[in-house]
């Protein structure tokens, strides 16, 4: 069974600082995607960034980047120059094996608070 583990239930940083959210996972698949989703207080889950496992280059989207280490099954999210609007729950996710039967397997989330 696939697992996704986020070991930081909550983090708090000052505005403009850089913060890294950790995620480890386990899968028997060889080629797969990994995702980070953001869920602000407005509730809607929004895709932040995705990484394809066979690509060695880490994905980057503006202030968001990942550190993907396939052998270690680690997929951390770095947010640079953090902004108040980054305050949200962040979920690491992995597509289920076996043709998408469960959709995505999510970690329990990290509540990120950006302090002014």
């Amino acid at each position, binding site marked *: 069974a696939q697992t996704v583990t986020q070991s930081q239930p909550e983090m708090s940083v000052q505005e403009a600082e850089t913060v890294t959210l950790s995620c480890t996972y386990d899968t028997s698949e060889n080629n797969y995607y990994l995702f980070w*989703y953001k869920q602000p207080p407005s*509730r*809607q*889950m929004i895709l932040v960034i995705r990484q394809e496992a066979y690509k060695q280059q880490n994905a980057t989207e503006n202030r968001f980047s990942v550190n993907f280490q396939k052998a270690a099954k680690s997929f951390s999210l770095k947010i640079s120059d953090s902004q108040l609007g980054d305050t949200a729950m962040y*979920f690491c996710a992995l597509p289920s094996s076996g043709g*998408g039967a*469960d*959709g995505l397997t999510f970690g329990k989330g990290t509540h990120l608070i950006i302090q002014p």
Partner: protein
Amino acid sequence: EAGVTQSPTHLIKTRGQQATLRCSPISGHTSVYWYQQALGLGLQFLLWYDEGEERNRGNFPPRFSGRQFPNYSSELNVNALELEDSALYLCASSFSRLAGGHAGELFFGEGSRLTVL
């Protein structure tokens, strides 16, 4: 292009009643997933519909059921409501997962908040 839409936004019911939640996927998407997000429990997979049929269900009792219509919209029904059913119910859509060949990314609606009193 319209995103995933869910209705109602909020729903208040009492124990024993039935609740019906609705979801319209993004145009072109045929896969619809339902998740329950209860406080402190993360996202729990409920149901997967694709091409009009239920393809998988999570570890929930049979009083959680649903269907997918010919236009790929979906409905989640919860019968005999219990207090612990109070949660945010999220619907997500994607291109068909039956054929595979894509990343598996899901697109989410804003959710329906169900409160059971």
